Every structure is written in structure tokens, then in C-alpha cells.
């Protein structure tokens, strides 16, 4: 029992990171109708800024350095939308994907130009573990993980409330539903897409900072795995809604943790490298039976 809970608590940070990246990817997918492959490297760009401002040269605390990184990623993302996607409005869907792929090459080469060939790291938000007594003794929950959960719930909660109830949320939903018609109804779709790109960049930087604070040293591609999870989460939850992908994004690391636990329980611990394969296989089976995703709606196709 303790072991199961520990396995689940170990997946807290991956859950938060995946949820945030999934939200970012869903926002861009819905307003700009492209899968943003550059999300991972834009996030890493922000994390590099955070680590620079926390490092020996500047030495700020993480709570001041993190907003700087978030602003850097936001600016890059807005610049991408204003400079490239706004002009390439009539590029088809695959073309847009290729553009984001070209952006990977550019950002990946810009980062070493600014920060050099280092692999920096970020200190934890809060150090230490939560103390348990009695029946729960032996549980390991780091304060850092709980802080990450707090940040994620707060940020995503605010975004969902804004999307649902604010005027801005309405414009985003209208643009996501049909950009052209939204424009005719008097919505400034340029501003809407620019804001969603900025928001996606900010979410990415936050996610990257959280991941780096937990364990990873930062490298250019260190968010790529989570980006792939996010794409899978998007298709598993169905891009028709905003909440579907985020729920699936939380579920993927969770199921991964459960699979690792189950493999260990069955005495197959040497096969724990296969856990992600099993998760993907489960996802594929679900997609086979529900091609629109778990929360998707069937779309009638016009001829």
C-alpha cells in the first residue's frame, strides 16, 4: 500500500508538467490549427533563462527568476505568431507543422549562442519532505512536488475559469471554433492568437521550470518527451474540448506509474523499461475504439 502511494506520489511532477504542456499545445492547436512541435524547445528556452538568473552570476531567488523565464518564453512565442504565423495564414496544416519544425532548428541553435554549451540545473522551490506519522509512516512526498501541484492547479484553474466565464475566453473559443467567422463577428483574431501563443509559451516555461526543479538538468531537448506525451494526451482526450486533453495529460503519467507498480508487484521489475510501451498500447487501443478521443464529439463531414 505504501509502495503504491509512493509510486503515485512520484508521478505528481510529471503529471503537472504534462498537464501544463498539454494545455499549451491544445491552446495553439485550437486557435492556430497546428501542432506546435517547437513547444518543447520554447519551454526549454524559458528554463535556461530561469537557471541563468538563479545562477552564480545573478543569484536571484526562484520566485523572481521564474517570472523572468516565463516572460522570455512568452515573448518568443508571441514573436513567432506575429512574425511568422500571422503572415502564413494560408499555409496548409502540414505546412504549419513544418514551420514549427523549422523553429526547432532555429531555437536549438540560438540557445547555445546565448547560454553556451552548458547543461544547467535549477534549485528546488522548497526543499525537504512532508513528515508523516503513524500508519502513513514511510510515505515520501517532497514539498517541491506539492508546490508544483499548487502552481499547476492555480494556473490551470485560472485559465479554465477565464476560458469559461470571461469575454476573452469567449473570443478564444469562438476563434477556435471558426477563425474566419469569428473575424466576421468583430473579434480581433490576430490579438487572440497572439495571446494564446504567449500563454502557451508561459505555460511551457512554467512546466520546464517545475520539471528542472524536481530532478532534471536542463538541456535543449529535455522537454521533448513531455511534448510527445502531450500530443498523445491531446488525441486521447480529443481536441474538441479544452478539458479533455488536460485530463488525459494527467492520466498518462498516472497510468505509467500504475503500470510500473503492477510490474513490480508481479515480480517483473526487470521489464519496467516497457512501462511506457504499455501505456502507449493502451492509448492506441482506446483510440482504435474511439477515434475522436475520450471526450471528443463526432464531427459530421461536409462534402
Amino acid at each position: 500500500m505504501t509502495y503504491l502511494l509512493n509510486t503515485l506520489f512520484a508521478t505528481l511532477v510529471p503529471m503537472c508538467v504534462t498537464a501544463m504542456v498539454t494545455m499549451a499545445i491544445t491552446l495553439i492547436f485550437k486557435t492556430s490549427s497546428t501542432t506546435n512541435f517547437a513547444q518543447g524547445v520554447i519551454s526549454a528556452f524559458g528554463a535556461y533563462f530561469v537557471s541563468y538568473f538563479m545562477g552564480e552570476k545573478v543569484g536571484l531567488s526562484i520566485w523572481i527568476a521564474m517570472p523572468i523565464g516565463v516572460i522570455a518564453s512568452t515573448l518568443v512565442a508571441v514573436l513567432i505568431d506575429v512574425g511568422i504565423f500571422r503572415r502564413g495564414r494560408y499555409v496548409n496544416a502540414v505546412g504549419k507543422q513544418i514551420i514549427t519544425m523549422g523553429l526547432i532548428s532555429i531555437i536549438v541553435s540560438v540557445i547555445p549562442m546565448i547560454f553556451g554549451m552548458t547543461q544547467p540545473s535549477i534549485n528546488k522551490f522548497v526543499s525537504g519532505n512532508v513528515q508523516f506519522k503513524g500508519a502513513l509512516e514511510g510515505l515520501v512526498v517532497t514539498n517541491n512536488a506539492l508546490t508544483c501541484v499548487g502552481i499547476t492547479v492555480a494556473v490551470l484553474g485560472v485559465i479554465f475559469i477565464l476560458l469559461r466565464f470571461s469575454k476573452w475566453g469567449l473570443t478564444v473559443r469562438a476563434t477556435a471554433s471558426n477563425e474566419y467567422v469569428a473575424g466576421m463577428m468583430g473579434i480581433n483574431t490576430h490579438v487572440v492568437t497572439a495571446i494564446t501563443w504567449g500563454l502557451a509559451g508561459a505555460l511551457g516555461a512554467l512546466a520546464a521550470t517545475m520539471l528542472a526543479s524536481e530532478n532534471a538538468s536542463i538541456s535543449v531537448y529535455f522537454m521533448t518527451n513531455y511534448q510527445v506525451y502531450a500530443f498523445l494526451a491531446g488525441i486521447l482526450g480529443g481536441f474538441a474540448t479544452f478539458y479533455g486533453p488536460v485530463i488525459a495529460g494527467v492520466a498518462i503519467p498516472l497510468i505509467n506509474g500504475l503500470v510500473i507498480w503492477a510490474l513490480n508487484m508481479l515480480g517483473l521489475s526487470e521489464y519496467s523499461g516497457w512501462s511506457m510501451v504499455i501505456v502507449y498500447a493502451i492509448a492506441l487501443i482506446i483510440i482504435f475504439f474511439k477515434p475522436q478521443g475520450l471526450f471528443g464529439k463526432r464531427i459530421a463531414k461536409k462534402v
Partner: protein
Amino acid sequence: MDKLLTNKYGVKGAVQRADAKLTLALRKTVSNPLLHYLIFGVIMCVIGYIAKQNTGVIPYSWESGLARTFAYSIASVGFCLLMGYSGLASLGTGGFIGIGTYAMYYIMGVLDLPFALAVVVAIAIAALVGIIVGFISLRIEGIYLVILTLGLSEILRQIYVAVEDNISISRFRVFIETITTRSVTIYYVMVALIIVMIVTTNLINSPTGRAMLAMKNSTSAAQAMGISLIKYRLLAFVLCTVYAALSGVMYMVTTRSVMASDANGTYALITSLNILAAVIIGGYKSVWGAVFGTFIMYGLQTTLLQQVNFLADNPIIITFFSGILVIVVVMFFPGGVAQLLVELKGLIKKLIKKIREGRYGKDLG
């Protein structure tokens, strides 16, 4: 009929006609794309041979650089078929390349069996995987298929990491001859590439290719004409998978070792994206375009640009400009280099016409 004509115009006419026939046959042969492919292959083999002699005429590293580029080209040609002729896009290329490399590793590295068997096994497994994946994933289309194949490629990569992370083969025999590191490997790659190019060209010009093109332009219209969507989509997808596996086999022939867990390596997302970009840059409806685009993405760096000292010291700059190039091509030349050439041809024709008009006056006829 023949005799009659000979009588009417005399012997001279017959000779003229025979001449015309010969010229026609000659022109047909010269404009035959298959001949172009063969000539291209021979030229590349000669370049590889000269480079391997290490006399300094052509840098030594060109042989392996070109061989690797053309190994990737095989996957690009398959992708060109999938995207340009059936309108599907996939990001599974990196994972499917792994099928080829692992078939090579197990057949030749572990079991020490001949090369031909490895090729056959790689193709068979790839076809099987393609059919299974195709049945699952072709129910959805467009941008979703891209993401699904991306996930699939990631599954394959995880499987490779779990099975055997770092694979390498030291030597292997092709039928009788043993290939060592000093052999010219570009021969094998070029043979495979040319076979693939010829098969693809023939397929594109066959009824199957036309059915695929119809499907790409309008799925509903194609269905109304009695074209089975799933059949042709599956065919294109399976071919793409098989080509990618073959590309993996050839990649293994040239590089000899691959590491699966490398996040920026051969099976990773970046390879699939590079192949996609190569096909877009070259022009996604042209076999030549796919090969040329792959050269831009992979070959340019290992051959020409490495000779410039500044760029050899700062390889990051090449990455930077390749990114900009990709974006510029997608935004301003959606048909890629292949379409650019066609437009250029039209422009030159127009220019010649204008010069003629200036010289002789307007053609009134």
C-alpha cells in the same frame, strides 16, 4: 500500308521515316526517367569510389556522407508517395527506420546470416507492422494521423531502448564478399535507392497511382468513382513503412552502429521531422525533389559545408540557417524546389518569346 507508302514517296521517304522513328526512339530513351535514375546512380557511385581512394580529388568523408544521405532518401521517396500521392502525413518514419536497423543487427550481427536475408526480413516485418498500424490508424485522418504515428514511433523507440539500446555490427557479408569498413558502401545504397525510385515512378504512373491522386484531391469524389479508400491508403502507408525499413537497412550498412536512447538520434522525432521537411523543401510530388530535399537536410552539411572552415567549427550556424530555409520555403514556395524549377522554366520560355518578339515582331499566327 508500309509498302504503299514506300511506293508513293520512294526510297528516300522510307529512309526519312526510319530516321524519324529512330530519333523518336532516341528521344524517348533520353527522356525516360528510369535512364536518368541510372545515370544519377552511376555518377554517385563514381564519386564515392574516387572519394574512397583518398587521393584528395574528392574529400574522403564524402563517401559516407553521401551514402548516409541517400540512405535517408529512400525513406523520403516513400514519404513523397504517402504525402504527395495519397495526401496522408506520418511522423513514424524514425521508428520505422529502426525496423531495418534491428533486422540488420539480429540477422547479421547476432545470427551471422547473409545480407539478403536481412533485407527480406526487414521488408516483411515492416509490411506486417505497416498493415497492423494502418488498420488502426487510417480510421482517422489529417493532423490526427500525424500525432498518432508520432506516438507510435515513440512506442517503437521505447521498445528498441528496452530490447537493446546500443546496436552495432562489425562486419558482414553480402552473398560471398565480406564488407569491411574500408569497402565502398555507397554502391549498396545507390542500388537500393534506384530500385526504389524506379518502383515508385512506375507506381505513380500506373492506375494505382492515379487512384491515389484522385483520393488525395477529393476523398468523396474518389469514393464515388469506386475507389476503395482504405485499400489505397493502406497500400501507400505500407509502402512508406517498407521504404523506411529499407532505409534503415542501408543506414546500418553505412554507419554500422546506432544508439536508440539518444533523444536526438536516428529513431527520434527529429528524424521524422527532417524527412518531412526534406520532402516539403524538395517538392512533395516529385521523386527527384524528395532526393534533393534530403540532400539539403543531411548531405549538404556532411559534404560541401564541412569544407568551409568557419562552418565546420560552428555547426550550429548550419542548423540555424536550415531552420530559416525550411520556413521560407514553406511560406513562399509551397511547391518546393521542384515547382520552383518548373516556374523558372516557364519564365525562361516567356523571356525567349519576348526576345524573339522584339527581334522579329509579334507573332500574328
